[in-house]
């Protein structure tokens, strides 16, 4: 016997054998085909190198045109006044607020993916967090335009911030609208900080790959001299964890505060305690819809199917199913409270202002159909029924179906904001006050124009910055695990 056995009893019992789990229990790898870490650099950074493909140029031309439309609409508004919009008594909050709430909700998925899924150790997030965070930043930019322009005289927009002015007036902090200013501006700033910090190691990758002096200088400047030192990584990872924690409590607060803009008021349909969690769930729901709308075509166009795998898409569909169901529950609960609360104005709003369609409900109850029944039932169809299709694996696995359903989710969430903002206002306590809101062509072009702004920035992002967090994806491959045989371990566990 060459080696002394520590426990003699062991020699008599047969050695313990841990069998590999059956193949169907093994998780699909996060990077398909066992691709190595060098391949990841080449593939992801390659998207932002070389000349842009034809589809990119076409999309960019269309986006810039639409962005110009957005700015022309702002110019028209500035020169003429808010009378060019469809606003009028009693609906004084229209498209501007609908679009603001919708866009800011879109952003929430990015922060959820980058922060909350990070804290929950969901490693699959690494393939999608960079693009989703970029989406957040650009969506918040689009959102920020609307409150700024809907104040009418937007050149006084800086009055929203506590800056000393010649009147020696200060903002009035007892108003939720003021809280909103702080929530949204903090959200934008912190999202940008978090995004930039995540970018630093990848900008160093771009710098080290750069062929021209110009690129070397540009990426080198923003990479700030990052070397990949482990002493730096140690501080970096701690800062990343802290930012993830801060972003988590931030993202939950932002749409909560946006919802307080409504729920602190006394208006039926707005004055609801369920609003903060319901808005946050809806925001995550719409944001994941947008992430899927963007990434399902992109992974194909940019040939990234091995990094953003079918499993990633499937997991996102499951998040849609969960948050969509929460939203559906919130709708049901709102309705229940409208009945159970016994407030006649609220009951009237929910039934005669929203739900009574001309075909069934109004016939059954012998009432007039609700003027905005079509908006309400579009919302229910897209937000409650559509996500239920994701129970089926076949639906989650079909990219075209996922793409179409994700667009329906976006439409449904826009209508949710429309229902909340417009229908609550259009029939208030006095029937002589009732009215019907119609957007004008400026309203519609202004909204479509923000898509131009969003996609212009998003396409530029694809061209200049790695759209997948290179260092983070490398870190979740088995090749990066020093205790895995592929990472060079002589003997190793099976964990991945």
């Amino acid at each position, binding site marked *: 016997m060459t080696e002394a056995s520590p426990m003699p009893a062991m020699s008599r019992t047969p050695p313990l054998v841990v069998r590999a789990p059956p193949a169907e229990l093994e998780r699909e790898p996060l990077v398909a085909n066992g691709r190595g870490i060098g391949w990841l650099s080449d593939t992801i950074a390659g998207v932002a190198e070389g000349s842009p493909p034809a589809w990119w140029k076409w999309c960019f031309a269309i986006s810039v045109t639409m962005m110009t439309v957005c700015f022309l609409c702002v110019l028209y508004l500035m020169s003429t006044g808010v009378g060019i919009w469809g606003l009028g008594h009693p609906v004084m909050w229209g498209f501007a607020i609908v679009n603001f709430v919708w866009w800011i909700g879109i952003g929430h998925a990015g922060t959820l993916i980058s922060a909350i899924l990070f804290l929950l150790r969901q490693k699959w997030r690494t393939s999608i967090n960079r693009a989703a965070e970029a989406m957040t930043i650009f969506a918040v930019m689009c959102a920020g335009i609307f409150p700024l322009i809907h104040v009418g005289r937007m050149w006084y927009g800086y009055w929203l911030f506590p800056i000393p002015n010649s009147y020696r007036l200060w903002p009035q902090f007892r108003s939720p609208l003021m809280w909103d200013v702080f929530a949204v501006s903090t959200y934008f700033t912190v999202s940008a900080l978090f995004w930039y910090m995540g970018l630093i190691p990848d900008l160093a990758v771009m710098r080290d790959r750069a062929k021209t002096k110009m690129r070397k200088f540009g990426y080198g400047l923003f990479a700030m001299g990052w070397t990949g030192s*482990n002493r730096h990584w140690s501080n970096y990872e701690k800062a990343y964890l802290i930012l993830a924690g801060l972003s988590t409590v931030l993202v939950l607060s932002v749409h909560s505060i946006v919802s307080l803009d409504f729920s602190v008021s006394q208006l039926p349909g707005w004055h609801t305690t369920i609003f903060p969690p319901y808005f946050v769930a809806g925001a995550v729901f719409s944001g994941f819809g947008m992430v899927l709308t963007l990434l399902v075509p992109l992974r194909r166009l940019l040939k990234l199917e091995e990094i953003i795998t079918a499993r990633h898409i499937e997991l996102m569909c499951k998040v849609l199913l969960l948050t969509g169901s929460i939203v559906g529950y919130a709708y049901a609960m709102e309705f229940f409270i409208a009945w159970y609360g016994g407030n006649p104005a609220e009951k009237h709003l929910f039934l005669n202002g929203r739900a009574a369609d001309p075909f069934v409900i109004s016939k059954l109850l012998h009432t007039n159909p609700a003027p905005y029944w079509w908006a309400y039932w579009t919302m229910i169809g897209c937000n409650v029924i559509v996500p239920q299709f994701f129970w089926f694996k076949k639906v989650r696995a079909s990219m075209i179906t996922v793409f179409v359903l994700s667009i329906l989710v976006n439409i449904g969430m826009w209508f949710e904001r429309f229902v909340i903002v417009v229908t609550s206002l259009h029939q208030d306590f006095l029937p002589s006050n009732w009215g019907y809101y119609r957007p004008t062509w400026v309203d519609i072009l202004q909204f479509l124009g923000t898509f131009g702004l969003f996609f212009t920035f998003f396409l530029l992002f694809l061209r200049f910055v790695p759209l997948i967090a290179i260092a983070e994806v490398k870190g979740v491959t088995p090749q990066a695990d020093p205790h895995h045989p592929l990472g060079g371990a*002589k003997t190793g566990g099976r964990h991945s």
Partner: protein
Amino acid sequence: MNARPYAILAEFENPAAILRAADKVRGEGFRNWDVFTPFPVHGMDRAMGIRNSKVGWFSFIGGVTGYATGMLMIWFMNAVDYPILIGGKPMFSPFAAFPPSYELTILFGSFGALLGMLFLNRLPRLHHPLLKNRRFKLASHDRFFLVIQTNDPQYSETATRQMLESLGSRHIEFVEE
């Protein structure tokens, strides 16, 4: 002219090899050395003997400053400098002042985390001897480097090189200042 190079650089092929090497180099008592990897290698902080990062303190101080700024600012603006009565509400209430202060806590805390990280890492830095090295460009791609500075008290031109070779490094070179 400085005759001595800045450091000796050893390249490794995979994370397990660099982890073993780091463990050994720390055990030998080196001080001015570091490991450069394309991503944070799990367990490397322990192998190198790096203690818990201090970034948290920067973030904490930022957060406390943010909350105090928010509360004091709102109290000063709405209750002292220009008090306006709104709907019979108190001039200052910590509840109404909470949401903006909460957001400022997060804002300042986040700046604390990012700037604290940069400060502790002594970044941004426009020049580094390693960034001039051709081979070192692979540190952001798929190679793992262990760098021992020549000003380390333990450093010896022959023995250190032999040690790195025995740890399995296939490529060793000197980095100029």
